[in-house]
């Protein structure tokens, strides 16, 4: 009876709480904060303030990732490549848990968070053996005395973003329920491409082809944030890949941000993508205020110059244009080919009138992709993933990129206003931000507030669609450019 460890039983019984309490204070409070934040996202999604399709699964995933922690088998550390996260518990004063990180020094010395205590492990084999055995005699570097203890690893059963190898995946598949979807659909960008196909099915390129110059020009201006944020991010200490990933937030296209971050900044793709999606939701609420601030009411009432005759773009012309544009863009930027293929195949399916494919992409791929994107992003939002010193920089740069892009779009609108002899509504400039069709709707809604009889939606949609293609081009440019200049 004396051998029963009641404290251990209680710890195991309420593992969700004990793992939280057992964590370092920063990790613990960040976890609690993220649980509350997840609940807020679900609430705001339900109220329609943020995008419910994304925020409800993402919020719930965030709660699960931070509340569903438990003590894992120490061997998981090896299988999941999480050696650096493993913790060591002194068997004598079990409450005193030391955290150590592998610094990568030649002798693989590990530094405890308590700076006065150091643990030395001679090699990676020793670390692996140490973790596998669970218990091992190790030597305190200062006192040179043997210390008995055991290895403990906290974690959850959801997603491990660092598991890349198939062997590790197979080892974890029995526990991590959504890991296969992460490995076979998320980390290889399949979900981003599914969503992009869905966006393609929603696009009518006829609006772009009817007014090509104004659409392309304003959309290019609305990429100002994508261009300006890159050097600013480098100045803030991010490397080229991370800077490009956060700069793409300026394009305001979630799948594109995910695609770029997974290609160029694998370590930071979770915070970058989460920041992008959160800001996309928030900025749609903020853009109307920016429009009212930057454009006087008199200019918001301007009617766009009508075309002399109605422009008819046939489905054949749209398909031919799609084929040529897709081929040229893929030839110029082969690294962005998955994105271009996904977008243009969606457009082609729509214009070809293949109803069964349109329904498949629109109702299964788009909604399925959005659902799993939200859920997996939420599940990746554990405190230990987000507690990176760069997250604060990303938060600032994300909002900076989106704001500068919006200002760039409005500047483009003003330039078009001048070029057309004051017969272009500058509010249309905001539609250059590529989120289809939300930004076009924002432009029309803001104009309708002051002039209900002024209709700019066709022009705004043309600019909006051009914005998607421009963002994809910038993504291709960054993915091609960054490895050349050194990520």
């Amino acid at each position, binding site marked *: 009876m004396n051998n029963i460890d009641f404290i251990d039983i209680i710890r195991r019984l309420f593992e969700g709480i004990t793992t939280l309490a057992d964590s370092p204070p920063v990790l613990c409070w960040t976890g609690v904060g993220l649980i509350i934040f997840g609940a807020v996202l679900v609430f705001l999604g339900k109220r329609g303030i943020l995008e419910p399709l994304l925020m409800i699964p993402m919020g719930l995933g965030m709660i699960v990732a931070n509340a569903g922690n438990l003590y894992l088998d120490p061997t998981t550390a090896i299988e999941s490549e999480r050696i650096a996260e493993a913790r060591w518990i002194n068997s004598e004063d079990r409450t005193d848990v030391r955290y150590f990180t592998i610094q990568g020094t030649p002798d693989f010395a590990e530094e405890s968070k308590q700076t006065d205590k150091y643990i030395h492990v001679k090699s990676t084999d020793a670390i692996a053996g140490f973790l596998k055995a669970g218990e091992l005699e190790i030597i305190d570097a200062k006192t040179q005395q043997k210390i008995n203890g055991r290895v403990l690893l906290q974690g959850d059963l959801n997603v491990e973003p660092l598991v890349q190898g198939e062997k590790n995946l197979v080892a974890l598949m029995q526990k991590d329920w959504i890991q296969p979807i992460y490995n076979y659909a998320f980390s290889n960008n399949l979900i981003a491409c599914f969503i992009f196909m869905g966006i393609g099915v929603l696009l009518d390129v006829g609006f*772009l082809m*009817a007014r*090509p110059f104004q659409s392309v020009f304003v959309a290019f201006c609305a990429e100002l944030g994508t261009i300006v944020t890159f050097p600013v991010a480098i100045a803030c200490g991010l490397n080229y890949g991370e800077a490009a990933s956060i700069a793409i937030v300026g394009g305001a296209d979630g799948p594109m941000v995910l695609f770029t971050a997974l290609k160029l900044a694998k370590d930071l793709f979770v915070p970058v993508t989460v920041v992008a999606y959160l800001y996309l939701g928030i900025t749609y609420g903020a853009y109307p205020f920016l429009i009212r601030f930057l454009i006087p009411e008199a200019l918001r009432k301007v009617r766009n110059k009508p075309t002399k*005759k109605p422009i*008819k773009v046939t489905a054949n012309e749209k398909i031919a244009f799609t084929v*040529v544009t897709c081929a*040229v863009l893929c030839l110029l930027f082969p690294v962005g080919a998955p994105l271009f293929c996904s977008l243009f195949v969606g457009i082609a399916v729509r214009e070809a009138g293949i109803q069964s494919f349109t329904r498949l992409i629109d109702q299964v791929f788009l909604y399925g992709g959005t659902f799993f994107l939200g859920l997996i992003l939420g599940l990746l939002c554990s405190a230990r993933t987000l507690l990176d010193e760069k997250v604060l920089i990303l938060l600032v740069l994300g909002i900076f990129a989106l704001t500068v892009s919006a200002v760039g779009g409005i500047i483009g609108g003003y330039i078009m206003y001048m070029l057309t002899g004051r017969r272009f509504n500058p509010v249309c400039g905001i539609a250059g931000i590529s989120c289809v069709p939300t930004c076009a709707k924002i432009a029309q809604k803001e104009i309708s507030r002051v002039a209900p009889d002024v209709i700019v939606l066709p022009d705004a949609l043309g600019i909006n669609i051009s914005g998607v293609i421009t963002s994809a081009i910038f993504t291709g440019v960054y993915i091609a450019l960054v490895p050349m200049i050194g990520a």
Partner: protein
Amino acid sequence: MKKIPRYWITGTAIAIAGVVAARVVAPELKDSHSVYIVVKTLGHLVAFAGIFLIARGISKNTE
């Protein structure tokens, strides 16, 4: 057989010329970095101009 409008042929040819400049000619000029960058950038711009020409031609196709 329906005649293919001229802007399709011209636009596609210009776009392909841009691609050739950016992807075939530019890599051959890597010895001179500045020339390489100029040719590559010009190639991209010419390719985009070709696509734009097609879109412009279609927008003029009023009824």
